């Protein structure tokens, strides 16, 4: 009956309630109704999802939901702390929408075979989603990046959904062409090179990434797509030559973009020396870095930091706010939770019953890993700043919905692969606590 998940969710909900009460007390000085309502609503949403898992996907892993739930709930708490009740309420509604979307997948998606059947359709759909912000009327440019669709009161970032669709499409494509991509034509300098015509798909992805970078000024998504494609190719073929080719293309594309486009160059310069222009271009990163320093090991305490000094603290820079108020300890906990989710995805890939299933799970793992790396590395000055959102934590709906859809797909994979191996015997708690490699 998924007892482990149940107990961990109770713990998650209590910790979340406590964090809201602490924020009320330290930042406002009194308890508010909303400070009780939001944690209770979140607990309700997560337990509802838990019961759907019990009913529809009993064999899925039991740690994944609590891990993703803690991150999501922490995100809402930080948004509450940084922007107040309205922002937190909005995010709670997005959490509800995200888990409804995930639940629909749990209930309606029989298995992953339908996803793998028509990879080119998925890839085309993904490209259309990426291009959607350039459509008249509903397309919108915010902060210089053409990434948005406006539908009534909602702003959606179709690129977030494009990520989901493209992972599936790419996994399907690679699964179909696994053997020919592994084919080696010649060796140069000890590197086994694939046939020229097999490199074509990668070159297409590379070109699309550059178009995203240039057309939408979105360094993060561009990097994400390309690096994911390269890593997935490597997993499919076990040929490290793909990594080498990918790296070379990355450097070439990056160098060209840096040389030609001011906005890429500026990001790069800020990264090299954020303190060169503390009051100007380096302001955001430097403020975030000061936040990390102010947090120290144990943090200033929830509600007691000055995270509001960082522009976009509740969205792109939410990790810096967490590190300031919860310290290195809190930041490390967040990284470990991401690590847990990603490890679960890799394990799901490892026990996948078909190359397609494994590749979807691998794609999810790679996508999540790269997003965490690019955002956490960016706000802490280790990498150039990109516009990527910190998955599960950042304010905003599109990324959250997309991330939970990926979690739901992992649940479907876990359950179906497990079900195939245990068709008749019902599962005990011990067997489902963790899926072994």
């Amino acid at each position: 009956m998924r007892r482990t998940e149940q107990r961990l969710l109770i713990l998650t909900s209590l910790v979340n309630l406590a964090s809201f009460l602490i924020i009320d007390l330290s930042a406002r000085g009194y308890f508010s109704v909303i400070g009780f309502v939001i944690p209770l609503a979140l607990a309700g949403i997560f337990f509802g999802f838990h019961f759907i898992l019990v009913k529809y996907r009993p064999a899925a892993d039991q740690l994944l939901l609590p891990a993703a739930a803690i991150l999501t709930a922490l995100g809402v708490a930080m948004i509450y702390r940084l922007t107040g009740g309205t922002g937190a309420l909005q995010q709670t509604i997005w959490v509800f929408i995200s888990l409804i979307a995930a639940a629909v997948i749990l209930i309606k998606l029989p298995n992953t075979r339908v996803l793998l059947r028509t990879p080119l359709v998925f890839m085309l759909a993904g490209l259309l989603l990426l291009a959607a912000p350039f459509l008249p009327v509903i397309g919108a440019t915010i902060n210089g990046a053409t990434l948005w669709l406006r539908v009534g009161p909602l702003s959606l970032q179709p690129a977030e959904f494009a990520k989901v669709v493209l992972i599936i499409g790419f996994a399907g494509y690679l699964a179909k062409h696994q053997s020919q991509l592994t084919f080696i034509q010649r060796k140069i300098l000890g590197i086994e090179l694939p046939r020229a015509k097999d490199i074509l798909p990668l070159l297409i992805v590379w070109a699309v990434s550059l178009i995203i970078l240039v057309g939408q000024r979105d360094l993060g998504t561009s990097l994400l797509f390309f690096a994911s494609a390269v890593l997935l190719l490597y997993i499919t073929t076990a040929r490290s030559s793909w990594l080498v080719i990918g790296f070379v293309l990355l450097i070439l594309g990056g160098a060209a973009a840096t040389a030609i486009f001011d906005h890429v160059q500026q990001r790069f310069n800020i990264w090299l020396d954020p303190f060169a222009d503390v009051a100007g271009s380096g302001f955001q990163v430097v403020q975030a870095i000061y936040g990390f320093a102010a947090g120290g090991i144990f943090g200033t305490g929830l509600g007691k930091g000055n995270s509001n000094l960082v522009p976009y603290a509740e969205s792109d820079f939410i990790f810096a706010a967490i590190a300031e108020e919860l310290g290195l300890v809190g930041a490390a906990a967040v990284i470990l939770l991401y690590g847990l989710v990603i490890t679960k995805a890799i394990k799901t890939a490892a026990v996948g019953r078909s190359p397609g299933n494994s590749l979807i799970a691998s794609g999810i793992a790679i996508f999540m890993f790269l997003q965490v790396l690019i955002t956490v590395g960016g706000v802490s000055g280790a990498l150039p700043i990109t516009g990527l959102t910190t998955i599960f934590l950042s304010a905003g709906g599109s990324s959250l919905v997309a991330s939970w859809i990926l979690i739901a797909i992992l649940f479907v994979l876990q359950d179906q692969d497990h079900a195939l191996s245990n068709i008749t015997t019902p599962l005990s708690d011990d067997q489902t606590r963790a899926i072994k490699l």
Partner: protein
Amino acid sequence: MKPQLNKLAIGFGAVFLLLFANLTYLQVFEANSLNNRADNKRSLFKQYDIDRGAIIVSGQPVAYSVETDGRFKFERRYVSPAFTHPVGYLSSIYGAAGVEQAENLLLAGTADSLVVDRFRQLLDGGARRGGSVALTLDSSAQLLAYQLLGNREGAVVAIEPRSGKILISASSPSFDANLLATTNAQTMQQSWSRLIADKTNPLLNRAYRETWAPGSVFKLITAAAALESGRYTETTKIPAPATYKIPGTKNTISNWQNAPCNASGEVTLQEAIAVSCNTAFARLGVELGSKQISKVAAAFGFGSNFDLPGSVVKSLVPETTDAAQNALIAIGQFDVRVTALQMALVTAAIANEGVVMQPKLISETFAPDLTLLKSLDSNVYNRAIKPTTAAALNQMMQAVVELGTGSNARIAGVKVAGKTGTAETQSGAAPHAWFVAFAPADAPKVAIVVMLAGGGATDQPAGSQISGNQLAAPIAQRLLVELLGRK
């Protein structure tokens, strides 16, 4: 696919470790230096969470913190620009100055002496409170001095000769410190840009953060050096022609209006001071040499920073063997540079039988519960000159006011000792007007220096004592009356 996935998992783990290492570097190893960077607002914002202690003058706070409803708990308030330079300011962006800076630990409540209070505050909860600082300034005299300086550039310093207590430390132009202490960042930034762009430099504390050419008030030190050398007494006759030709050079030094200082062409040292005789002092300078003069100057504190909040700029007498330069040094020209505070210390030492007291601006410090922490003692800085020398100089300075160039400093019923000065800076530029004085001359209670930078009229040649007497002496006189009236 398992081998690739294993490698991927290891790679991911390694990258996460690097991220963690970077965070550890930022949050542990580099945290301190990042927190202390001047442009880091967070550390400065912390100061707004503290109920910072008051700075008190004559029993009334001149700088204090008030609770606000905004995002910061407390805001700093300052009562008058008259106190800005000694008291300083505390700005979240531009740092601190003056007593606010020097006594920051005590005012913020983090000083070691407040450890018991901090523990008590921890138990009651609530905001951290700081200790208070009482200054030696005399509130109404300080306000009057600032008012008398008006829109002129200058400084007034008054010292109690026996204790070294600074009673007045006024500097003009000044500014409203509230503009830099406000919690409104925009107001603060605009005010700061305006202050640093202001050509009159209101941020400069002219009482002791800048040195000036002293002109004839420096003759007190030359006279002291002459008396201390044992080769001269106050009655020694010195030739005082209309012009003095410096030996070995073609240069000459002349008196005001090119007249001899005395009909006989000879003056005593006392007369030379009284009429501020340039030719007599130039000759003294050549005969004594700048080495002797700078030795006595050093005894008065030249070359010292003292230990005052905001730090005192060193006053300076160059040493040279050039006769022409020695002659100019003796009358306070050439490269002699003094702070108003240093001249006040010289004057106070003459009043105090030759003993320079360590100048002090802070009289007492208090714990957050207003119990006395420390009452600052009066300390001797140095016995600069012999009591007999001091007594002789006292007599000479009385003659300046009674018979000589300092007539405007006279106070009915009180003997005043003084010395005028008009310092040429560069030809064409307006000279500085100086007046130094102490009173009552027979039992000195206050020593005072008034300096008006570029305050003298340009149409008078250097050595003319009119500016010092006309412009600076009346201010000194008013303030002496104010200070003595209640002493």
